[in-house]
């Protein structure tokens, strides 16, 4: 009896009891479907978090004012006044630190912004021309802030697309040349950044950039920095750079005890690692739950197959009397179980892909289906068929034809 015949025999047997076949398959559909959906959603959220963090800049170190732990100066996080322009200059001009690609001194504050008729409250960032490169800002229209703007304390601004919409309405995308007012100062719009999207840490589109000097002296009347962003040359030198910058700033601030430091340095790596660890744990947890439902589905198949063997005892006896060998009976029952699980696996896979597609588009996550999870689903469902089908098949094949034919 060749394999094609066995398969068509199995299919016609399964068709006889459609209800039971359907219920057995349902267990596997739910199992495989939830594994695929949860794994791919987990991976999607992991990817999304990683993307968002990386969209803030690559190989990024951020120096914030304030104490790292207990110490003399303990301002609120980010609220300290201990970072100055000269710190940024010192880092940039350091002869000993050779692993730095760019340094961006920054001032950040929220402020009320007005045009003729509209107003909005948004983030104002005082930046130099290195900011765009470090934080991966791209310009849609016009230009970004230049060194010349910083030197001349120019009254210019670069707007995020969200601010443009808030101030000028949906119809206007390019208000270059128009003016906005911030803290009593009129600023001329020279550029619009490209939309970045994302709402994880802060909305990258709801921002106004002005020259650092303008922000410090004209708008806010301060001489300190909110933060210094440093881009390391590559991923491998980040820890080294972090340490060297730390020593340099201690020296600049005339501190000898590192525990007294009036600044702290964050590495993007730390955030990235923590975030992907968290999402990874969630993915694992969810997959674990899904795997349990898969196991339950497999036991369901075994149960159905055992019931089938008992119910079809006479049929098995007859088949043996008509010349079916042990091997043939085992194969027949195994194929029935595998058809159940593979069918369930394929439908479950489509279901899982469908669910993760809809959920990820609803939650605006990237839609990813890893081929490995699909291969795993097919492999696992086939394996479930063999594992949970084996015992019932063996039971069937070991029936004595005389006993089986007499069975009522």
């Amino acid at each position, binding site marked *: *009896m*060749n394999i094609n*015949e066995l398969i068509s*025999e199995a299919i*016609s047997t399964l068709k*006889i009891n459609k209800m039971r076949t359907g219920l057995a398959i349902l267990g596997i559909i739910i199992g495989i479907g939830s594994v695929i959906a949860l794994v791919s959603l987990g991976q999607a959220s992991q990817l999304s978090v990683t993307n968002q963090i990386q969209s803030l800049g690559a190989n990024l170190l951020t120096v914030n004012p304030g104490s790292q732990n207990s110490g003399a100066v303990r301002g609120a996080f980010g609220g300290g006044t201990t970072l100055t322009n000269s710190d940024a200059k010192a880092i940039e001009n350091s002869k000993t630190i050779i692993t730095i690609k760019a340094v961006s001194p920054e001032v950040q504050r929220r402020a009320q912004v007005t045009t003729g008729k509209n107003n909005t409250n948004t983030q104002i960032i005082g930046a130099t021309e290195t900011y765009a490169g470090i934080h991966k800002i791209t310009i849609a229209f016009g230009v970004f802030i230049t060194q010349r703007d910083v030197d001349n304390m120019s009254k210019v601004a670069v707007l995020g697309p969200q601010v443009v919409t808030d101030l000028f309405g949906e119809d206007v995308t390019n208000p270059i040349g128009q003016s906005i007012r911030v803290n009593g100062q009129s600023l001329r719009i020279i550029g619009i950044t490209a939309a970045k999207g994302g709402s994880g840490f802060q909305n990258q589109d709801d921002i106004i950039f002005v020259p650092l000097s303008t922000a410090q002296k004209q708008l806010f009347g301060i001489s300190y920095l909110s933060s210094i962003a440093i881009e390391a040359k590559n991923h491998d030198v980040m820890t080294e750079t972090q340490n060297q910058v730390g020593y340099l700033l201690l020296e600049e601030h005339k501190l000898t005890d590192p525990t007294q430091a009036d600044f702290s340095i964050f590495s993007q790596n730390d955030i990235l690692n923590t975030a992907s660890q968290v999402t990874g744990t969630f993915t694992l947890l969810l997959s674990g739950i899904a795997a349990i439902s898969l196991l339950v589905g497999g036991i369901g198949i075994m149960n159905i197959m055992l019931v089938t063997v008992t119910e079809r005892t*006479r*049929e098995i*006896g*007859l*088949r*043996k*009397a*008509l*010349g*079916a*060998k*042990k*091997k*043939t009976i085992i194969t027949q029952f195994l194929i029935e179980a595998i058809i159940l699980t593979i069918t369930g696996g394929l439908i479950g896979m489509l279901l899982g892909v469908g669910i993760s597609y809809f959920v990820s588009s609803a939650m605006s996550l990237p839609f990813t289906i890893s081929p490995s999870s699909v291969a795993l689903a097919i492999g696992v469902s086939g394996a479930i068929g063999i594992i949970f089908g084996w015992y019932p098949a063996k039971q069937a094949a070991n029936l004595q*034809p*005389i006993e089986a*034919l007499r069975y009522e």
Partner: protein
Amino acid sequence: MIVVKHVCKIYQTGTVETIALDNISFTIKKGEFVAIMGPSGSGKSTLMHILGALDQPTKGTYELDGINIGQADEDELADIRNQKIGFIFQAYNLLPRTTALKNVMLPMIYAGISKQERIKKAEQYLKMVGLKDRMEHTSNQLSGGQQQRVAIARALAMNPAILLADEPTGNIASSQAEEIMKIFTDLYQRGHTIIMITHEANIASHAKRIIHIRDGKIINN
């Protein structure tokens, strides 16, 4: 050609031995129509199982067409049942919810005969038992007599050396039983070897030779 020599079948239940067949010997030649008669518990079913290669004798030898069935292993027995023996059961034992045609094709599937050939032969035998118009009916759509005729067609499918019928009319109304016996007589005239087990004398009377057994022994051959 069936040669049964000194066959014993002893069942062991704990320490109690039950002798189902006690030193039975007989020969059935090709083309014979033999009825095996006996009351229930006489050992005729046990004999039937041994003749049908469903069971093996404890002692003695059973040769079917020169093959010693007592020496065969499980797979060989399966092949012998498939190729050499056509079973007709009292309860028909058709596959439920399966068409007459597919039921007749079943033993040919196990023999590895091609689908075309299977359909051709199954149709041929179903015509022979007078079920030309019932080929696509499933077993539960057929009467007892019709089901038994499907079973006969299935038994003939592999053109076996012997047809082995166990109370073939036991579950069938007497009017239809006559038709079944007519088919047997017809098959006998075509040269088939038929061994039929029954306890009804009028059914046995269709056979050309009757073997009576009682308490595991042949009392009249």
